[in-house]
């Protein structure tokens, strides 16, 4: 079931009504049932996998908590991590690794036929696997107690607003909410619905609109001129922001309506002036997860190498992030570009700071604009490698043609460009005001009823006017 489907428009209000009619102590149980119904609706057999990961996590976290010996605790933690990763590896990386082995064998003259899995990746597996791993490691590090109630663990890993594409939640943030008072709060209902409304706008009016142009160009890249390829490349970050950013707001909004706070995932990323700042604003839940469970242990291990230890850890972390996004070399290149960009920033930070201080640049608007533009361009370039269908040679060919093709008028799709630009302008102005003039212009939060309701109707009208209703999937469902 997709957030933009008709089924969800029936499912969510029904869940809400039953949820709030039930006595408080039964609400979390109902949420668990609703979440499994939601997930089974996608493909029943994959729910078995989710249940297996839940059971593994539950058993091993409790074993870790009960055990005193450090060695045994560690063994339980490692076993749990391996078992939890197995389904993800099987569905996501089996073919990738096999193809690698096949290519290597081919190089030495051995032509063996290796098995190939042709099953779809279970939706959300990358997300709930990371959530389960995070919880297990937190229990091992004694940062959280092991949960005795398997139902709470099951709800944490299957919670329907976040199960498909995050935000990648933490047990420490969710358990106490599920076990606490899940009360009706008119304020939270309004906040949640506002987030959902804006999320739908970002997804339907911005992301899906731009997807028409981007897909038309990249699916027939050979037939398009360099300027069209450049335009589509530049649109990609905005499309993903609209898609995952929109999805995240709908997810966070859904949970908020039910009285549950989910961590944010984006914070006006295009106003970042450096890549390191960008990664504190983009897909925050994933980056925080990678920082805590991959980067920190790695950099701790390499700390005796000083700066270079951090450089190695950064690059490895982002290559793992690339692999998490997709089992293909292009995603590894995407991750490597991020790692290199961040390493360069870190190694030059002191001289950059001194340069900025010397010429008093840090608060100059044109300098900030330059930083934002450079960061955006670098991310757009890296994102060329982050497409699901593109191989590294294809991407290099596209980038080469952007540079070498003679300047011509790009491919024109009047409606898409006009409506896409309009949707982007609205999102940009909103983000700009919140970034630089917070609280100055209030629409959704205006105390005046007329202004507030007018704002709701305007966004709703714009969703229907500018939006695409062809049942487009969310980009991050494939991960």
């Amino acid at each position, binding site marked *: 079931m997709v957030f933009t489907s008709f089924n969800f428009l029936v499912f969510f209000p029904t869940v809400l009504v039953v949820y709030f009619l039930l006595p408080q102590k039964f609400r979390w149980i109902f949420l668990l049932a609703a979440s499994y119904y939601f997930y089974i609706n996608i493909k029943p057999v994959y729910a078995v996998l989710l249940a297996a990961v839940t059971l593994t996590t539950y058993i091993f976290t409790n074993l870790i908590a009960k055990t005193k010996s450090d060695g045994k605790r560690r063994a339980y933690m490692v076993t749990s991590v391996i078992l939890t990763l197995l389904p993800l590896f099987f569905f996501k990386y089996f073919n990738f690794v096999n193809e690698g082995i096949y290519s290597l064998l081919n190089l030495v003259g051995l032509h063996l036929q290796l098995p190939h899995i042709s099953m779809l990746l279970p939706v959300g597996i990358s997300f709930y696997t990371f959530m389960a791993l995070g919880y297990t490691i937190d229990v091992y*590090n*004694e*940062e959280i107690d092991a949960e005795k109630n398997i139902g709470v663990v099951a709800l944490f890993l299957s919670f329907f607003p976040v199960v498909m594409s995050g935000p990648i939640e933490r047990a420490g943030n969710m358990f106490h909410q599920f076990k606490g008072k899940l009360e009706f709060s008119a304020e939270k209902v309004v906040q949640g619905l506002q987030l959902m409304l804006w999320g739908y706008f970002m997804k339907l009016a911005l992301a899906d609109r731009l997807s028409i142009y981007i897909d038309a160009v990249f699916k027939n890249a050979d037939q398009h001129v360099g300027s069209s390829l450049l335009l589509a490349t530049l649109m990609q970050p905005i499309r993903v922001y609209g898609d995952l950013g929109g999805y995240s707001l709908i997810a966070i909004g859904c949970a908020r309506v039910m009285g549950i706070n989910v961590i944010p995932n984006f914070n006006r990323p295009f106003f970042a002036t450096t890549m*390191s700042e960008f990664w504190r604003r983009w897909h925050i839940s994933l980056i925080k997860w990678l*920082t805590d469970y991959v*980067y*920190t*242990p790695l*950099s*701790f291990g390499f*700390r*005796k190498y*000083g*700066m270079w*230890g*951090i450089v190695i*850890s*950064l690059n490895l972390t982002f290559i793992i992030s690339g692999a998490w996004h997709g089992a293909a070399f292009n995603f590894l290149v995407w991750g490597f570009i991020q790692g290199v960009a*961040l390493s360069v920033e*870190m190694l030059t*930070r*002191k001289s950059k*700071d001194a340069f900025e201080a010397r010429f008093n640049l840090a608060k100059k608007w044109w300098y900030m604009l330059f930083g934002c533009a450079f960061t955006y361009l670098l991310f757009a370039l890296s994102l060329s490698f982050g497409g699901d269908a593109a191989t590294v040679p294809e991407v290099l060919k596209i980038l080469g043609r952007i540079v070498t093709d003679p300047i011509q008028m790009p491919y024109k799709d009047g409606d898409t460009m006009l409506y896409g630009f309009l949707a982007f302008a609205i999102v940009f102005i909103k983000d700009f005001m919140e970034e630089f003039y917070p609280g100055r212009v209030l629409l959704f939060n205006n105390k005046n009823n007329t202004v507030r309701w007018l704002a709701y109707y305007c966004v709703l009208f714009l969703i229907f006017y500018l939006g695409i209703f062809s049942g487009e999937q969310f980009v991050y469902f494939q991960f």
Partner: protein
Amino acid sequence: MQKEEIVNRLTPVFRKVFSDNSLVVTDELSALDVENWDSLSHMLLISEVETEFAIKFKLKDLNKMANVGDMIEIIRSKFQ
């Protein structure tokens, strides 16, 4: 080791890592208060502190360091 001695030895380490000669080390000081104190410079700080005091932190120790006060307590515990 006395807390005062730890603070006195930590101050130049902090000032060097964060390139700020006016930085004052207090119990409440945390990453939120210092520009450039992020996950990258944090590990440099950890490494410099280990060298200064000739100690080794555990990964678990890092998770318990919410501010400098926590760090001082962990350093003290290494000398007990």
